[in-house]
């Protein structure tokens, strides 16, 4: 019995083609847009995540216990060792691809008898680019630290300009060492970091080699932070206990979720917006289905009466109309999702290049979408269609055959 009901439903859907096409198009468009935007957002969120994790933080970080709660991150009281034995413990954790050490500190940079307060970041020139290769994208001109030598420095244009130094010139960093005693060392300004006007956490900022800073701050074999790289960023949480076990309880292990929580916040905000837009699209499309089915029921009143009088059960009438709506929703949904997926896969393969004015490296976005999401929105479209057809279908199933037959 059911297959014949399906056959009748399909035939009914194709009876008023123009109306079905319009309804079908609404569902098609809604699903196409939902899958397309989801795919684009997935790509953008992955790019955002990568640009932070591979450009600044690393997937996980190790600090001395209490570091994350300390008032200033440039405190030299809470340090981690950077000797080979300690680093080996971290490298020994399976899945760790690269390890690098950093020191964040503040100081006065002096040149031409002027000085400027600056935030400085000391990095291991060789290992840093294994953990954070995107750092290199931020050097707009000049050399890298690895090419620049043992006292090389990469400075923001704001910092260099305020001191009146040009690439190739020398400057001096004056700061307090771990004990508070002043110390100063000369730097060679070899590279420019970022471009003026680009949003940056600190306008006056610079990079120096790790060994240079260890000398300047008189903290041999010490750093304020160790960052590691892993293959898949979403597995960071599973590495946390393993790294913690490797380094011991005197240290704290954090993931990019902890140090760059704004990524998760931004992603959550984007998703909420997408869900709202998707819900509105889908709601409008489903209103179309409800309208179509109601029209259908009204038009086919006599037909319903005839069916009932030849012995078709009320339940079957209900099922017939729900089936018709379900077919419209599912078909429109499948084709819409297919069109959206086609867009996602095409650009996922080709990549979308976004170049914002003033940005050094263009953004490469590779849209992706999961099978789970496609199945979810298809279910939503079909289920929603059935739900929105419920009232017209119930109305049809509750008609009295005599009255229905007599209707004009």
């Amino acid at each position, binding site marked *: 019995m059911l297959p014949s009901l399906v056959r009748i439903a399909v035939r009914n859907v194709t009876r008023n083609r123009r109306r079905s096409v319009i309804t079908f198009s609404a569902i098609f468009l809604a699903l196409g847009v939902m899958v397309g935007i989801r795919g684009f957002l997935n790509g953008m969120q992955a790019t955002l995540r990568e640009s932070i994790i591979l450009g600044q933080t690393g997937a996980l970080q190790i600090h001395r216990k209490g570091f994350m709660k300390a008032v200033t991150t440039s405190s030299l009281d809470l340090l981690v060792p950077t000797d080979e034995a300690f680093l080996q413990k971290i490298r020994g954790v399976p899945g760790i691809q690269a390890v690098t050490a950093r020191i964040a500190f503040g100081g006065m940079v002096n040149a031409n008898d002027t000085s400027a307060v600056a935030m400085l970041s000391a990095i291991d020139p060789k290992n840093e680019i294994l953990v954070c290769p995107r750092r290199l994208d931020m050097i707009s001109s000049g050399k890298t630290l690895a090419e620049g030598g043992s006292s090389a420095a990469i400075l923001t244009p704001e910092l260099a300009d305020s001191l009146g130094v040009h690439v190739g010139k020398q400057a*001096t960093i*004056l700061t307090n060492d771990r004990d508070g005693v002043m110390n100063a060392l000369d730097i060679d300004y070899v590279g420019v970091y970022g471009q003026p006007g680009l949003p940056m956490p600190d306008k006056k900022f610079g990079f120096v080699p790790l060994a240079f800073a260890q000398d300047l701050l008189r903290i041999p074999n010490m750093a304020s932070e160790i960052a590691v790289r892993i293959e898949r960023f979403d597995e960071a949480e599973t590495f946390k206990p393993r790294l913690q076990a490797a380094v011991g309880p005197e240290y704290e292990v954090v993931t990019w979720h902890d140090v760059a929580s704004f990524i998760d916040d931004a992603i959550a905000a984007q998703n909420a917006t997408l869900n709202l837009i998707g819900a509105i699209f889908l709601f409008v499309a489903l209103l179309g289905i409800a309208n179509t089915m109601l029209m259908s029921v009204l038009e086919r009143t006599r037909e319903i009466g005839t069916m009932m009088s030849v012995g078709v059960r009320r339940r079957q009438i209900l099922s017939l109309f729900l089936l018709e709506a379900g077919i419209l929703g599912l078909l429109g949904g499948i084709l819409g999702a297919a069109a959206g997926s086609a867009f996602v896969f095409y650009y996922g393969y080709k990549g979308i290049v976004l170049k914002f004015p003033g940005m050094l490296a263009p953004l490469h976005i590779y849209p992706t979408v999961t099978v789970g999401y496609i199945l979810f929105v298809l279910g939503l479209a079909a289920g929603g269609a059935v739900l929105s057809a419920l009232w017209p279908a119930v109305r049809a199933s509750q008609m009295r055959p005599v009255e229905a037959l007599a209707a004009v």
Partner: protein
Amino acid sequence: MKRHTSCVLPVSLSLAILSLPLAASPGEPTAEELLRRYDQVMSPKTFDALMTMTAHRQDGSERSYKFRALKSEDDKIRTWFFEPAAAKGQEMLRVGDNMWVYMPNLKRAMRLASRESFQGGDFNNGDVLRVNYVADYTAKRETAEDPKLWLLDLTAKSKEAAYDRIKLWLSKDKQQPAKAEYYAASGKLLRSAVFEDVKNFHGHERPSHITMRNELATKRWSEMTMLDMKLDIAIPAQRFVLDDLGR
């Protein structure tokens, strides 16, 4: 516009005249006199002093510095560090608004700012190298809660002064500094100091021990102890020239 000013001026003038008698009762020192007294006690016209500064840090450890400070007749100050070993050979110089530190490893002097920490402790560079409150602050007398103390409210005349605002208490009997509170422009309390242990250094009486509490990081504090202070000595002007640092 012209009518406007001619109207405002007499009003503000009369206000100023009215407020004048409030500044000091007859027989009491004026704010300016007390400020001059502070400078005279803490930073006499010329001196050659030996001091220690001990910085007590958050983690409970402490670091001590020993240095010599020299002041010229025209208000220039130079210091030499002897201890600890890491600071040995470092020198500081202030001439007017300019401050430099000489680094022996670079054999070169670099600019310092008066509001930066003095060797990582809770005194700032201005506290040590720039004690000329008459030049740097305008003073107003206020009523102290303690009847034995005078209270001054000091406002910085320029950004180069060590602090934006200072509340300074002096004892009424000997007119020696007793305590002080140092504020940011926002009104936030940054540091507080207690002046103690008045000693006679070759005929000059002054507090020999200053405790400076860090009110932002309350576990931190620093002490400055005057070991010796000679006055009225002839110092060649050459000692207060930038090129002389390191020699």
